[in-house]
């Protein structure tokens, strides 16, 4: 932090305080409560709770459905962000090449277009809805070709595609802006050194894009938990046969449909630890690739 930008440390405190209060109220308090509840057996229709130690964990961890949901979550967490970032990266590399050496005006024009993509992503959820969207006619040609209602794999692919589609506009903007900050002369130097366009992507552009790639990966990871819930709830409701029941959705079903509040709290704690470990791993990775431009 730059020293002396504001007159005193209290100014900083006053500026940061509102956001800290919000984060505390809506993140740390619920997280703390989840930890607390995971140690108690809560009666669904009131009547007090009973301290049971780690019994809830033992129960959840011996449940096969939990492990299935965790496995699906892990697959989803790897596949969706990789695709969302891979595709965005290719689009950004192409756009960057098109924008190189052109006037700044075109640069400005691209932003609103890219932002508009976000709303397209929302529409997509409906368009690819297997029962209302574009796959319905396909099914008439080849019955059963695409039936996420019956086929678990189709259903899983649907939410992966929706999740990826949703993430692309934002990732694209972040990655493109990162590419645009690579100085023209660095690219020219690589051209003079004989590097082909593909070689420059691997040797120059992607390494110089690591901060942006890291940011998009962290946000995509968190997104696979936060945003995926909405997609599953509107598109598949966890089905068919639990094929799209990721941990986050299972928690919701267990807690609010089956009224297993203690089980839901326990799984929340486990999911939280899971995400924390993933993000911590990414931060460790980030330390190895840090450099000054």
């Amino acid at each position, binding site marked *: 932090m730059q020293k002396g930008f504001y007159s005193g440390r209290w100014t900083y405190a006053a500026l940061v305080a509102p956001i800290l209060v919000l984060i505390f109220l809506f993140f740390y308090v619920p997280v703390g409560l989840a930890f607390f509840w995971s140690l108690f057996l809560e009666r669904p229709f009131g009547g007090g709770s009973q301290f049971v130690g780690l019994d809830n964990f033992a129960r959840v961890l011996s449940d096969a459905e939990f492990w299935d949901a965790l496995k699906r979550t892990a697959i989803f967490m790897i596949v969706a962000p990789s695709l969302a970032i891979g595709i965005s990266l290719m689009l950004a590399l192409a756009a960057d090449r098109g924008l190189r050496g052109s006037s700044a005006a075109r640069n400005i024009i691209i932003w609103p277009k890219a932002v508009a993509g976000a709303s397209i992503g929302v529409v997509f959820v409906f368009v690819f809805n297997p029962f209302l969207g574009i796959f319905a006619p396909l099914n008439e040609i080849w019955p059963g070709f695409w039936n996420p209602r019956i086929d678990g794999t189709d259903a899983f692919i649907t939410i992966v595609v929706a999740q990826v589609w949703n993430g692309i506009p934002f990732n694209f903007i972040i990655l493109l802006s990162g590419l645009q900050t690579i100085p023209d002369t*660095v690219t*020219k130097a690589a*051209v*003079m*050194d*004989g590097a082909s366009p593909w070689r420059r992507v691997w*040797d*120059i552009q992607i390494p110089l894009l690591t901060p942006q790639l890291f940011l998009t990966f962290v946000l995509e990871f968190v997104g696979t938990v936060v945003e995926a819930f909405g997609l599953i709830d509107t598109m598949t409701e966890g089905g068919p046969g639990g094929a799209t029941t990721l941990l986050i959705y299972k928690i919701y079903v267990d807690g609010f449909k089956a009224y297993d509040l203690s089980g839901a709290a326990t799984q929340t704690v486990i999911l939280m630890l899971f995400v924390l470990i993933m993000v911590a791993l990414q931060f460790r990775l980030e330390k190895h690739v840090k*450099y000054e*431009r």
Partner: protein
Amino acid sequence: MRGDAIHLDAVTKSFGATPVIDAITATLGGGEFTVILGPSGCGKSTLLNMIAGLERLNSGKIRIGVREVQDLPPKDRGCAMVFQNYALYPHMTVEGNIGYALKVAGVRQPERSRRVAEAARVVELGGLLDRRPSELSGGQRQRVAIARAIVREPRVLLFDEPLSNLDAKLRHGMRMELSQLHRTIGATTVFVTHDQVEAMTLADKVMILNKGRIEQFDTPHAIYYRPASSFVAGFIGAPPMNLLPVTGGGGVLRLDDGTELARNPHEGPAILGIRPEKISIGDKGFAARVVYREDLGSHTAIVARLSGGQEVQVATPIGMHLDPADTITFDFPQDHLHLFDPATGLRLETP
């Protein structure tokens, strides 16, 4: 000498309607140090990039040695380039930066390291090979950029204002080193700058560009002593040459108000040029009034106003006591006059 000559043949480039480089034809001598000098925006970098292959020509031809190169990609032209802001790869070590071209070309290890070490030795970078660019000073970064350029033993070395990001003292040191480097390596060197001191000290020949055209392409000596146009005259020298509109007749040159400035056989209107250090102050000649004085140690620079209102810069030997408002007498010696055509700006050769 292993440098190839560069032949430019009606090289033309425009961005949009106005030409940035306007049909330039010239030959840059093999193994010579050519400086392209001109004001900012006159097309120097564009011309250099076209030689390098980073910018396509609209028309014209470029030959390097015997090969026509205007349609070849940069890597096949045998050129290497040093950029103004160094353009180092920030994520690679010094060794990685210098060796990148070799790596791309498929030169294998021990050989690659050996050549990187050799290039680093030439620019005195030993011991820094493991550092990142962010851990180096400006001067060291510039050395890395130069090492990266010479490691492939190019036949043509291109520099785009390589010294303008360095402070004055470093710049002087780097000038001497570049000059020595050029003698050791012997590659044809093209050096772009807007700094006339760099041009005059480094160049075998200077190409002065103005608005995409060559104003003069000659040795530093010729450019200083026989400027080909009033643009060159006003661009070279610190302070630059005084340029005064005069009319010649009856063996003398006069200002509009009739003041007789110098003896010269030219008839009709002309631009009279005279360098500040060639004006003598004495008791013969015409009167002027001192308006400003600066003591610069080695000499005193004064600005004086002539009877017609024109201002003239004069460099006088130290020890002459002049103060603002003093009236002095100037003499323009006949053999130090330059005359230019008022319409075209071109030098007029007086019989």
